[in-house]
C-alpha cells in the first residue's frame, strides 16, 4: 500500500463502522481490488493534481449547489464507492419493492383508505400528516402513476447490513451529480475503469423521458413533456437544466404556463402549445395558488384542477409527501406485507414512535444517545444527534417533543459505513450513505445502477448533506459478467462492409484530373 493509506486501518477501527473498501487488517475487499491497484500506482502529487482538475471541471461546467445564496461546486471525492453485483441485485429488488408498496399506499390513501379500515395503520397517522393534501383526494392521476421518480436513502450499519433510512417520493434530487460524477471520474481516474465492467448511468434521462411520456393523459399521441422549475435561485437549479437538456424538453417556470379549460399550455413564439406531462420540481405548497399557498408566484393557478380532470400528468403526483412522512416510514414494512404480501427485502432502521407513551418515555430518558428527527423534514433539517448536542439543545428538543410528539421520531445513532476519502495529504475513512434512484413507468420500476453516494467530509461526522459540509462519490455497480459491454449500444451490422455503392460513379472531371496530372509530369 502506498503512503496515502498510511494509518488508514487505525483510523477505520476507531470509527467502529463497517469499511466498504477494506476488511479488517486492511485487505481490500474483492470488489475494490482493481481500484486499490490503480490507486497504488499514484503518488500524492498525482492524486491532488487530479482532484484539483476535477474540482475545476465542476466549477467550469457549473455543477454547483446553492449554499446561502452562493454557488459552490459540489465536492467530488476521487475514490469511488464500489458495489458488487450480488449486493446490488438485492438493493435493486428492495428499492423496487418499496416503491411499489408506497405507490399502492398513496393510491389507497387518496382513495378508499382500505389500509385504515383493515387496521394496518391508524387513521390519525394519515390525517395528521403535514403533506396529506385533501385537495387531491378522490381521483386517480392521469397515467395512473404517482411515484414516477423516487430516491430511497439507504445506509449500512456497523455489521454491513443495508437499511433504509428514509424514502423520498416528492422531489428527490441529486441524480444530476450521479451523471456528472461519472463523466468526471472517467477522465480523473481512467486507470480504474479498464478491464472492469462498470454499469453505465447515462441512460437515466432516456428512461425518465420514456416513463414520463408513457404516463401521459390518455388519448395523447405525441405527448409534450416539460420540467417545471422554481427558477435560477433554487438550490437544485443546475439539476433542472441538466435533466431538461438531456431529455431535450423545455424547462419552464410557472409564469410560462397557462391553465385553461383544465388543460395546460405554455407560451411559445409559435403561440400557445399544449403541455401533457409536467415533471414538477417545486414543492406542492407552491404549485397552485388556487389550492395551496395563495401568495406563491412559482406555480400556475389551475394545475391541480387540470390534473383532477385528467388533462395533464404531474410527476410526481401532488400529495406524495404523506408517504415519506417519517412516521409513516416506520410503518412501511407493514405496508409492504399488506399490499404486496411479501417480506421487506431491506429492513428499516429501528424507529421509536414518540406518540406511543412507553416509547416516548424511553426516548426522553435516553435523549443524549439517540437521533431525533422531525417527521416532515428533508435535507437533514431540524435533526438532532444526541451525543453531539449540547445540554441546551437537548432541553429545547425535549420541550418541543412534548408539545408535538406526532412531529418527531427517534432512532439509534448509526455508525454509517465508511469509504476512504482524500483529506489533506492522505486517505481517511469518512461516513457515507447511498441514494438509489428509481423510475416507475406504471409497469416496471427501473433502478438506476448505483445512485448518489454522499460523504461527510469532516472526520467522524455523520451528516452527509451538501448544505452541511458533505460531498459525493461516484458510485460504481460492477456488472455480473465481464462480457457486458461498457456501453449498452448494440453494434450495427456495418462490420460486414457491404459495398453497395450509392454515390454516382465519379464523373469525368476525375479523368480530366488524371490528364492534368499526366500533363504536369
Amino acid at each position: 500500500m502506498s503512503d496515502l493509506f498510511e494509518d488508514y486501518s487505525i483510523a477505520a477501527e476507531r470509527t467502529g463502522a463497517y469499511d466498504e473498501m477494506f476488511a479488517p487488517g486492511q485487505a481490500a475487499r474483492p470488489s475494490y481490488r482493481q481500484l486499490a491497484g490503480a490507486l497504488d500506482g499514484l503518488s500524492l502529487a498525482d492524486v491532488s493534481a487530479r482532484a484539483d482538475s476535477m474540482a475545476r471541471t465542476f466549477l467550469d461546467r457549473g455543477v454547483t449547489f446553492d449554499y446561502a445564496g452562493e454557488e459552490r461546486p459540489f465536492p467530488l471525492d476521487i475514490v469511488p464507492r464500489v458495489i458488487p453485483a450480488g449486493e446490488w441485485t438485492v438493493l435493486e429488488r428492495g428499492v423496487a419493492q418499496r416503491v411499489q408498496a408506497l405507490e399502492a399506499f398513496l393510491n389507497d390513501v387518496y382513495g378508499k383508505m382500505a389500509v385504515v379500515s383493515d387496521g394496518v395503520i391508524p387513521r390519525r397517522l394519515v390525517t395528521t400528516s403535514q403533506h396529506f393534501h385533501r385537495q387531491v383526494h378522490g381521483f386517480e392521476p392521469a397515467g395512473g402513476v404517482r411515484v414516477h421518480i423516487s430516491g430511497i436513502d439507504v445506509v449500512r450499519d456497523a455489521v454491513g447490513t443495508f437499511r433504509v433510512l428514509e424514502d423520498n417520493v416528492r422531489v428527490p434530487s441529486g441524480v444530476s451529480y450521479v451523471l456528472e460524477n461519472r463523466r468526471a471520474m472517467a477522465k480523473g481516474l481512467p486507470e480504474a475503469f479498464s478491464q472492469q465492467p462498470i454499469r453505465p448511468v447515462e441512460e437515466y434521462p432516456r428512461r425518465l423521458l420514456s416513463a414520463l411520456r408513457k404516463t401521459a393523459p390518455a388519448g395523447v399521441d405525441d405527448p409534450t413533456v416539460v420540467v417545471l422549475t422554481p427558477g435560477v435561485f433554487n438550490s437544485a437549479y443546475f439539476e433542472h437544466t441538466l435533466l431538461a437538456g438531456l431529455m431535450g424538453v423545455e424547462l419552464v417556470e410557472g409564469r410560462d404556463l397557462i391553465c385553461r379549460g383544465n388543460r395546460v399550455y405554455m407560451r411559445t413564439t409559435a403561440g400557445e402549445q399544449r403541455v401533457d406531462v409536467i415533471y414538477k420540481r417545486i414543492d406542492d405548497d407552491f404549485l397552485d395558488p388556487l389550492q395551496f399557498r395563495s401568495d406563491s408566484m412559482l406555480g400556475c393557478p389551475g394545475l391541480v384542477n387540470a390534473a383532477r380532470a385528467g388533462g395533464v400528468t404531474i410527476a410526481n403526483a401532488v400529495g406524495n409527501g404523506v408517504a415519506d412522512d417519517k412516521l409513516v416510514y416506520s410503518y412501511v414494512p407493514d405496508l409492504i406485507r399488506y399490499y404486496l404480501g411479501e417480506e421487506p427485502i431491506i429492513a428499516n432502521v429501528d424507529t421509536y414512535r414518540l406518540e406511543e407513551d412507553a416509547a416516548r418515555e424511553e426516548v426522553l430518558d435516553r435523549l443524549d444517545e439517540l437521533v431525533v428527527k422531525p417527521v416532515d423534514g428533508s435535507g437533514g433539517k431540524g435533526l438532532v444527534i444526541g451525543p453531539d448536542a449540547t445540554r441546551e439543545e437537548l432541553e429545547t428538543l425535549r420541550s418541543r417533543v412534548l408539545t408535538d410528539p406526532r412531529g418527531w421520531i427517534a432512532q439509534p445513532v448509526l455508525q454509517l459505513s465508511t469509504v476512504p476519502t482524500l483529506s489533506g495529504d492522505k486517505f481517511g475513512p469518512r461516513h457515507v450513505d447511498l441514494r438509489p434512484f428509481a423510475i416507475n413507468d406504471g409497469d416496471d420500476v427501473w433502478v438506476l445502477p448505483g445512485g448518489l453516494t454522499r460523504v461527510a467530509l469532516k472526520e467522524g461526522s455523520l451528516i452527509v448533506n451538501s448544505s452541511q459540509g458533505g460531498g459525493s462519490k461516484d458510485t460504481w455497480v460492477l456488472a455480473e459478467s465481464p462480457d457486458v459491454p461498457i456501453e449498452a449500444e448494440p453494434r450495427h451490422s456495418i462490420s460486414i462492409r457491404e459495398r453497395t455503392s450509392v454515390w454516382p460513379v465519379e464523373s469525368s472531371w476525375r479523368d480530366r484530373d488524371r490528364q492534368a496530372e499526366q500533363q504536369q509530369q
Partner: protein
Amino acid sequence: MLSRIAESLFWIGRYVERADGTARILDVHLERLNHLPPEEQRSVAQELLGVMGSRPEKDEFGLSELLHALAYDRSHATSIAGSLGAARENARRARETVSSSLWECLNTTFYGLSQHRKDVVGTYRFCNWVLERTAMARGHADTTMSHDEGWQFMVLGRSLERADMTARMLSTREVHTAGMSWVNMLRCAGAYESFLRTRRAAFDDRHAAEFLLMDRLFPRSIVYALRDADKALEKLDPSDQRVGFINDARRIVGQARTFLEFHRTDDLMVELPEHMERVQKAVAQASDAISRKYFNRADEQAWVGEVS
C-alpha cells in the same frame, strides 16, 4: 490579393479547424480506449491513427504513441501541435494581412503547446484547452478582420476541413469492436444538446448519423459545412452566376453536398462508410482544385496553354 497570402489564409482556416476536430476526436476516444485491455488498445490505437490519415512509424504502437501522434508531435500536421504550429507559421507569413489579435492568439497558442502534462489525464485538459484556443482564433478572425477576399479564403479552408473532420469523426466510430455509442459521437461534435432538442424522444443511431451528416442548421454537420464552403467559393468567384460551373472546386463541393442533402435511403448505417469516404475524397479534390485555380497559377496557365 497575392496568391501566396490567399494560400496562407486558406491554410490557417484549415489547420485551426483540424486542431479543433482532432482534439474533439481524441478526447472522446481516449475515454473509451482507457477501458480496453492492452492488446485491444494497441490495435484500436493503430486503426484510429489510420482514420486520421497517418500510419504508425514503429511497430510498437500503443496509447502513449497515439497521444504523441495525434496531440504532441510537432513534426506532422496530423497532430494538434503540428496543426497549430503550421497555422501559426502561415499566420507569420501573412502577418500584415491577418489582424494582430488573430496573430497574437495563434502565437500565444503555439507557445502554450508545451505547457501541458503529456499523460492521459493531462491530455484531457490539453484537448479542452485546444478547443478554447481554436474557438478564440475563429472568433478573432470573424470579428477583427474585414470579411473581404482574404477572409473568404480562411472561411473556405475552415469549412472544407470541418466537413472532412466530421466525416473522419463518423468513421472513427468503427474502430471499436463494440462500436462507439452515438451519444459519444454527438458529444464529440458538440452536437448532443442540439440534437436532443430537435429529436426529442425519437433517438437512435440512424437519427444521430443523419444529424451529423445532413442537418441543415447544425454548423458542424457535413451538409452545413459544405454549404459554407460553397458560399465562400461563390463570393470568391462571382462570375458564373447563370449556367454551369467552370470552377472545378464549386462543382465538386456542390455535387457532394447536393448528393447528401437530397439523398434518400432506408439504410443509412450500411452506406455510412461510403459516404464518409466520398466526402473526404471530395474535400481533398476540392482543395486541389482551389490550389490550382487560386494559388498555383503557373501550373494552370501552362496546362491551358498546351490545350489551346
